[in-house]
């Protein structure tokens, strides 16, 4: 349903965008900028998977495979691996297309599956793809991966290892993504996705083609991962198969659930929160506890890796207190709370 944004929503959005645009100027710490930039690729992954899981309701546990495909596509044609050096910018689109193609290829066999069954099959794909990259050493460098991936340049300015330009590339790409996705959400296709999520049989009886609708979800979802893979590979300049394992898929999914399934703002907050926790805050906290342990001569504290303990505890707490996610689309909230909730006042026709 099309609703015009209210003035305060526009003002709030503008403030958030301005804050992100000014961040590298305010905080000149390269480490911080780099961590927030890394949240960028994570956010793109979250948005892509949100199409598949949040909009279309297809539980995909192997989403990192498309991230790997995007990253390897770029790394193979823009490094010393084969001594070809394709330009970064067109590769953004090309890798997205390659990933979308694999989205269709891997999506097609799963079309008849739902829920748990779909999750298991996609989990399998998620495991297969990094294995393939691991074992095709001739093309992918095997376990060592591909190094010296080309860094982009724009109008003669070489990005190098400076995090700032990558940071801005992510901002532009994410802003565009949000606009495209919110347009899609309130469209023929967006409603078809949701209809399939709610009741596939009823949706097909309304003329929704389940095959193309689901494949479009897989393809569009994968294309975000393909795009993210290119920027990721160019910023890190080094990729290897173990960066695309199951835990990546699960973390992306966690961000969606944490933020609120199907909500674009929720996906942003959930994604940013998990990315910053993982890339910036928790490593820092772990350093502090190590230092603390050393200071009080307690080996247990000095050597404990609290990163994932704290991370896990946060996930558990959020899910306990807000099972629908931080910012949920209202429908999810109803779904999860309707067991407790009294019959809605809706029947009275109050709007």
């Amino acid at each position, binding site marked *: *349903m*099309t609703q015009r944004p209210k003035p305060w929503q526009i003002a709030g959005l503008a403030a958030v965008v301005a804050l992100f645009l000014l961040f590298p100027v305010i905080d000149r710490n390269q480490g911080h900028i780099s961590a927030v930039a890394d949240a960028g690729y994570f956010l793109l992954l979250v948005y892509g998977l949100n199409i598949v899981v949040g909009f279309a309701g297809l539980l995909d546990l192997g989403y990192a495979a498309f991230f790997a495909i995007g990253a390897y596509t770029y790394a193979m044609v823009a490094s010393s691996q084969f001594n070809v050096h394709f330009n970064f910018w067109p590769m953004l689109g090309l890798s997205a297309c390659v990933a979308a193609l694999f989205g269709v290829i891997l999506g097609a066999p799963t079309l008849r599956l739902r829920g748990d069954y779909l999750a298991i099959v996609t989990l399998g794909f998620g495991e297969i793809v990094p294995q393939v990259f691991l074992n095709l050493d001739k093309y992918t460098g095997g376990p060592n991966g591909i190094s010296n991936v080309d860094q982009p340049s724009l109008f003669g300015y070489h990005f190098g290892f400076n995090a700032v330009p990558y940071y801005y590339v992510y901002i532009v790409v994410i802003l565009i993504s949000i606009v*495209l996705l919110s*347009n*899609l959400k*309130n*469209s*023929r*296709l*967006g*409603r*078809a996705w*949701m*209809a399939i999520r*709610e*009741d596939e*049989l*009823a*949706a*097909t*009886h*309304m*003329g*929704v*083609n*389940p095959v193309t609708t689901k494949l*479009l979800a897989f393809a*569009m979802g994968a294309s975000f991962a393909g795009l993210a893979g290119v920027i990721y590979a160019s910023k890190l300049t080094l990729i290897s198969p173990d960066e695309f394992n199951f835990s990546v898929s699960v973390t992306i999914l966690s961000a969606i659930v944490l933020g609120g399934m199907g909500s674009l703002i929720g996906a942003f907050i959930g994604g940013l929160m998990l990315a910053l926790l993982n890339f910036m805050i928790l490593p820092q906290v772990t350093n502090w506890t190590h230092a603390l342990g050393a200071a009080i001569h307690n080996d247990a504290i000095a050597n404990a890796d609290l990163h994932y303990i704290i991370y896990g505890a946060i996930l558990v707490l959020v899910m306990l207190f807000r099972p629908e996610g931080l910012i949920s689309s*209202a*429908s*999810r909230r*109803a*779904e999860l709370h*309707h067991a407790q909730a009294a019959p*809605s006042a*809706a*029947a009275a*026709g109050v*709007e």
Partner: protein
Amino acid sequence: MALLEIAGLTKRFGGLTALKDVSLTVDAGSIVALIGPNGAGKSTVFNVVTGIYTPSAGSIAFSGASLVGSKPNAVAAAGVLRTFQNIRLFAFMTVLENVMVGRHVRMHATPFDAALRTPRAVREERAVTERARELLEFVGLSAYEREWARNLPYGMQRRLEIARALAAEPRLLLLDEPGAGANPAEKRELMQLVQSIRQRGVTIMLIEHDMKLVMGISDYVHVLDYGEKICEGLPERVRHDPRVIEAYLGKGA
């Protein structure tokens, strides 16, 4: 003129024959009732026509073209829309969105148009919203357009399902027990709604349990029992047919 022509339709599930050699026609512009006791195979007829099941034998022709082997979405695109016996709305979409989904087959915007909000997509989206509102008004649900479908009371959900199907501009509307669970007053309203749908030029085939109810509005009645058609004709004739009375009340009644 026959809009829907079913001939020799048989559907077997393993050893069970759910439909046996059923033939019936639905004339354009009419209201046709399909009645029969529980388990007679009425819903199976709908499920075969709309492509959930492929028939084991027989033919289904909709305005001259065969529907056998068509997927449900193709059947909908051809102009045959339906409602479900156990209401199947998109529970966590708004009332308005539900109707807009119904408009799916009459929309042309590509994903590309939609993502970029091209003038064409914006225009279409506006027209669809307007059309959906019009239909909500027609079924008397205008006040609830922003509620989730699941929050509506039962009777309203039935009407929403009808509005959703109408959004596709069907030529044939299949209503599967629209009056189930309704009280007598609601049933009367519903039958008025069915008649006004016919006045919009939509042919209607409805399944109903309640004989009295269908007699008032149907132009023609087909009766199924144990998967076989046992009788057809004008309501008045069917009502007094001994086979029908026996099917409903049992032997010797």
